[in-house]
């Protein structure tokens, strides 16, 4: 009786549509987030993450509708991140049907927002999303960056930041390696191990998976869950293949 390693596909959503390309067979409309969420549920995904990449407030309003429609049809947990700044944003997403909410830039600019959200909704709703790059002038050698791929510097030591977020009340950490992201050379195992050593809350590893065999080492390094986007979307690897690989390596899966 051990909690299963969660395998989580992540979908980028803009103006109510999945962007950055998803290529699913047997789906007439591969851009519909609700249809894709249902397809991933059927494929055995343990959770889903929507990343709201909307630039405009009108598009953000559309996101609530997407979340609502997904929650009505897909009966696995749904995390929504992107553009979350205040407890009110969290409230709206939870009411729309999200189970957890990811926060990133807003927590860096104002860490107290982590406590405010945790106190009001419980720490289990809050996923601290950290985009981490190496080679910076920090004690651990890893730095938290903002604005995704643009690697905008914050001066924050990534390992210390994750530990602080956990203390402030984050329920989980989504650890995204900017260095590994898109390289398909495997997860950043040293980063996972370093953050694992610093926090006791669940840790989701993200960035770098290229094949099913890349997943078990991330779990061995200390991840409780694994997240990937394009390799699932383009069918390079299926959820089932990742679970089989994890199972073969002795990790419990659903």
């Amino acid at each position: 009786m051990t909690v299963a390693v969660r395998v989580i596909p992540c979908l980028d959503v803009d103006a109510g549509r999945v962007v950055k390309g998803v290529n699913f067979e047997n789906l007439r409309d591969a851009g519909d987030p609700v249809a894709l969420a249902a397809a991933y549920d059927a494929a055995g995904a343990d959770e889903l993450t929507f990343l709201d990449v909307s630039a405009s407030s009108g598009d953000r309003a559309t996101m609530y509708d997407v979340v609502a429609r997904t929650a009505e049809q897909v009966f696995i947990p749904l995390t929504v991140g992107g553009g979350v700044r205040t407890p009110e944003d969290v409230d709206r997403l939870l009411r729309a049907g999200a189970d957890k909410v990811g926060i990133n830039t807003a927590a860096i600019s104002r860490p107290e927002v982590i406590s405010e959200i945790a106190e009001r909704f419980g720490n289990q709703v809050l996923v601290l999303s950290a985009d981490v790059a190496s080679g910076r002038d920090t004690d651990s050698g890893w730095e938290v960056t903002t604005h995704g791929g643009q690697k905008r510097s914050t001066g924050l030591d990534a390992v210390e930041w994750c530990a602080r977020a956990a203390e402030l009340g984050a329920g989980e950490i989504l650890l995204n390696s900017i260095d590994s992201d898109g390289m398909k050379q495997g997860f950043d195992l040293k980063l996972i191990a370093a953050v694992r050593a610093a926090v006791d809350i669940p840790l989701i590893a993200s960035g770098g998976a290229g094949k099913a065999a890349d997943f078990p080492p991330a779990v061995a390094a200390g991840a409780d869950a694994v997240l990937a986007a394009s390799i699932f979307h383009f069918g390079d690897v299926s959820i089932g293949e990742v679970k089989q690989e994890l199972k073969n390596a002795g990790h419990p899966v659903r």
Partner: protein
Amino acid sequence: MSKPSVALFDYGSGNLRSAFRALERAGAEVELTSDLDAARRADGLFVPGVGAFAACMAGVVKHGLDTVIRERVAADAPVLGVCVGAQVLFTEGVEHGIETEGVGVFEGRVELLAAQRVPHMGWNTVAVDEGMRLFAGIDPEERFYFVHSYAAKATPPGALAAVCTHDEPFIAAVERGSAAATQFHPEKSGDAGYALLSNWIKDLAA
């Protein structure tokens, strides 16, 4: 035959949309309500809850739901609590050293999980007492979705329980008479959760 009615009680807690649809899908006529008469009248009362025990219990008391839950259980009318909605059915909850009185349907104390990794988050298996109606026909290997830091640790007298282990054993589900509770989220537990909710709803019709 008409569908069994379920009152999904809204006292200001979390994501109710999934619970609403999951109950509907499992065969119930669902009413989302904050009305006590609706909660009295329905064939089944569903008590949701996320967040802190004390905050949830305050919401329950503020709406007068604690009284209706006790009335229903005394009258053998079905009640199902989920997650913190399950926890508040116990005698008391302890968070950060502060004790909060619960509804008191199940004897016991809800406490912090003594586990290395807290919150306990994800899909886990449970060991089910023989004869539990909630789990009738469900494969013992099935996993359910948990997300919580606190739990009851002991089976209340005369109750049947499903026990999950996350470093230490705790009560994943419990039933006695018309009162039932699950620490996990059946509405988020895919097909296994659907089967459990269907069992509960089938019982309402009986």
